[in-house]
């Protein structure tokens, strides 16, 4: 075999490892790994890890797999395998080969089968068997830590499929399953109070695979293998994942796409009310909520979240600000990139703002084109394939085990908050200018018109469909809209909006009625497609100006809450209305006390006057 530049190979093999994690389950193939392990040659410049593996089972196959997986991650591994079933002996002897080896890490692999055998061979039952096992385990840690500075990787015990009492098993304190369960809990608890001992959760692997498939009793009886050869690579990978985290390879930030990743559908097309995202609606909407909950949990433990979406920022922000079922809020996102640049640029911006390495970033996007583009331009970024079915994304990400860590400090938990505050400071300095500039750049033009027979069908349609930005949710029919159109005591208005990206068509309906010296808001609804653009501010200016023009003293409105219109709960309050003491959620504004709202929208030419007399 020709010699290969080691730098290239390191890089190449790291990519291959990423490819592997991308397709976890498929690529964790015993034959593939054994072959890869034989062919892998890492240069002397590759980092070296000296790993001791001590087991009460056969560890040769496992050692080869661990070496192959670490090799594919660019790490040269020297492995010392302890003598079979002599863990305590080797650890307690300061002159043993284990300590001469000089390990960086010691893996202690306790097999469930060995525990089972020892348990069943007891001369008499009784005594504190679990306590004895725990004491022995701690004795071994003490010995290792007294003799070397290696980190210890202690396995949990897989729960064997044997059943002696059926469902009663766990009610018997001394049963095998009770013993293993208690032992795992106690061993893990002991590691919490101790530095330098990490957990390798082989029980989690066994239960993920399923014990019936994980265990292969022939392999134990014949060769003392701890599990089926088929699933040994997964055991190896879980050891390797801890080792990589121990060596500092940890994910610090998850960058997520929005449309069809964080929610179903495209918010720019389907509107705020049209995206699939629901805490109780059933179906895909709940899957997206569950993914958001998963991500929020990651954030709570200190992994940063960032957004990278091809969208107008105002549109991308809408669900974060206004969607009632959105789990992630704007505050949860450390860097929010929504523009029309390519996603590699967006991810570079995330890296720069957070000052983290590209290889500590995971990028989640439903779109294969975007994933491939990022893999191509930023090969260090971890880009998992994503299952098409949103309901399986969380399980898939969990299976990849991308978020391994070896410590969880208070700083970790606070880190997300710190980054957050920093990012907010930076942003608040520029945000106002940005949003205003952005809105100005949109060149929005609005037409506000009294209902006309051409638009009545569309007006009625919007009145049927609009749920969220709808103050009273009256569902007027076409006939009722036509009647309003002809009724001189009403001022029924609709608005259409255009901007430099195109025509948004009918976007809002406001029905006003003059009663004595007040202008009453009978209906006010708006398409969520145009949220956060200043349309409602513009229209309120318009309505108040109309009241003034008619010589009216006040504008009065009502908010009728429904299950879906929570986003306009504070609608009147935001414009300076005061709440009336009359029953219902009724509000009043003195026309003379109104503060003109800022809105970067022009009234377009051809607008008709509001009192029903048509210009022509």
């Amino acid at each position, binding site marked *: 075999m020709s010699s290969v530049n080691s730098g290239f190979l390191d890089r190449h093999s790291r990519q291959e490892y990423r490819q592997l994690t991308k397709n976890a389950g498929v690529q964790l193939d*015993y*034959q593939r790994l*054994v*072959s890869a392990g*034989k062919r892998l040659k890492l240069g002397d410049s590759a980092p070296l890890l000296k790993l001791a593996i001590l087991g009460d089972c056969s560890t*040769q*196959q496992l050692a080869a797999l661990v070496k192959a997986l670490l090799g594919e991650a660019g790490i040269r591994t020297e492995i010392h395998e302890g003598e079979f079933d002599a863990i305590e002996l080797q650890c307690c002897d300061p002159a043993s080969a284990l300590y001469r080896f000089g390990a960086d890490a010691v893996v202690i692999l306790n097999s469930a089968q060995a525990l089972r055998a020892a348990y069943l061979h007891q001369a008499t039952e009784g005594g504190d068997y679990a306590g004895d096992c725990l004491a022995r385990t701690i004795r071994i840690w003490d010995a290792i830590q007294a003799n070397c500075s290696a980190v210890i990787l202690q396995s949990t015990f897989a729960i064997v499929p044997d059943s002696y009492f059926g469902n009663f098993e766990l009610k018997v304190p001394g049963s095998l399953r009770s013993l293993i369960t208690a032992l795992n809990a106690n061993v893990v608890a002991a590691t919490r109070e101790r530095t330098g001992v990490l957990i390798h959760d082989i029980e989690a692997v066994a239960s993920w695979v399923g014990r019936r498939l994980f265990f292969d*009793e*022939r*392999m134990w*009886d*014949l*060769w003392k*293998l701890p599990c089926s*050869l*088929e699933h040994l690579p997964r055991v190896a990978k879980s050891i390797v994942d801890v080792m990589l985290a121990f060596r500092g390879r940890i994910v610090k930030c998850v960058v997520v796409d929005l449309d069809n990743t964080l929610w179903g559908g495209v918010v720019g097309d389907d509107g705020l009310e049209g995206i699939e995202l629901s805490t109780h609606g059933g179906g895909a909407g709940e899957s997206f909520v569950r993914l958001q909950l998963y991500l929020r949990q990651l954030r709570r433990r200190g992994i940063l979240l960032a957004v990278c979406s091809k969208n107008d920022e105002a549109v991308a922000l809408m669900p974060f600000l206004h969607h009632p079922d959105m789990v992630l809020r704007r505050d949860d996102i450390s860097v929010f990139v929504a523009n029309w640049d390519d996603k590699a640029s967006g991810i570079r911006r995330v890296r720069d703002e957070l000052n983290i390495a590209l290889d500590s970033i995971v990028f989640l996007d439903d779109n294969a084109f975007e994933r491939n583009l990022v893999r191509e331009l930023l090969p260090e970024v971890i880009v998992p394939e994503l299952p098409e079915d949103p309901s399986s994304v969380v399980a898939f990400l969990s299976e990849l085990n991308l978020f391994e860590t070896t410590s969880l400090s208070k700083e970790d938990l606070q880190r997300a908050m710190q980054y957050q505050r920093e990012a907010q400071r930076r942003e608040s300095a520029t945000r106002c200018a940005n949003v205003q500039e952005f809105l100005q750049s949109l060149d929005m033009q609005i037409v506000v018109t009294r209902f006309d027979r051409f638009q009545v069908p569309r007006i009625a349609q919007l009145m049927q469909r609009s749920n969220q930005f709808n103050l009273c949710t009256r569902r007027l029919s076409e006939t009722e809209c036509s009647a309003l159109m002809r009724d001189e005591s009403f001022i029924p208005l609709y608005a259409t909006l255009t901007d430099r990206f195109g025509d948004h068509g009918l976007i809002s309906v406001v029905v006003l009625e003059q009663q004595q010296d007040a202008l009453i808001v009978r209906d006010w609804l708006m398409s969520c497609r145009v949220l956060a653009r200043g349309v409602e501010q513009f229209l309120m200016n318009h309505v108040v100006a109309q009241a003034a023009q008619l010589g009216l003293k006040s504008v009065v409105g009502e908010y009728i809450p429904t299950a879906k219109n929570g986003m306009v709960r504070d609608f009147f309050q935001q414009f300076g209305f005061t709440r009336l003491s009359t029953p219902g959620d009724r509000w009043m504004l003195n026309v003379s006390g109104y503060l003109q709202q800022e809105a970067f929208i022009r009234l377009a030419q051809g607008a008709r006057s509001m009192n029903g007399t048509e210009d022509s």
Partner: protein
Amino acid sequence: MQSSNSTAERMSRIFREVFDDPSINIRDDMTSEDIDAWDSLTHIHLIFAIEKEFKIVFTVGEAGSSLKNVGELRMLIEKKIGG
């Protein structure tokens, strides 16, 4: 010429992979003496690979038995797949 899907040919492919030697063509009279890499460790791998390829499950006795030669292994496989 042997059909590429005969038991022997499928076994040859497995042997080449497991023993990492593309030149292997099995014969019935071959024993572990004839293949350098055939030791207790690779034997486990061989059993695993055969089970996967032929979708069969050896009993503990079959998996651990010291078969006289490759021919015996081939006949055992054929018996188990009901060929």
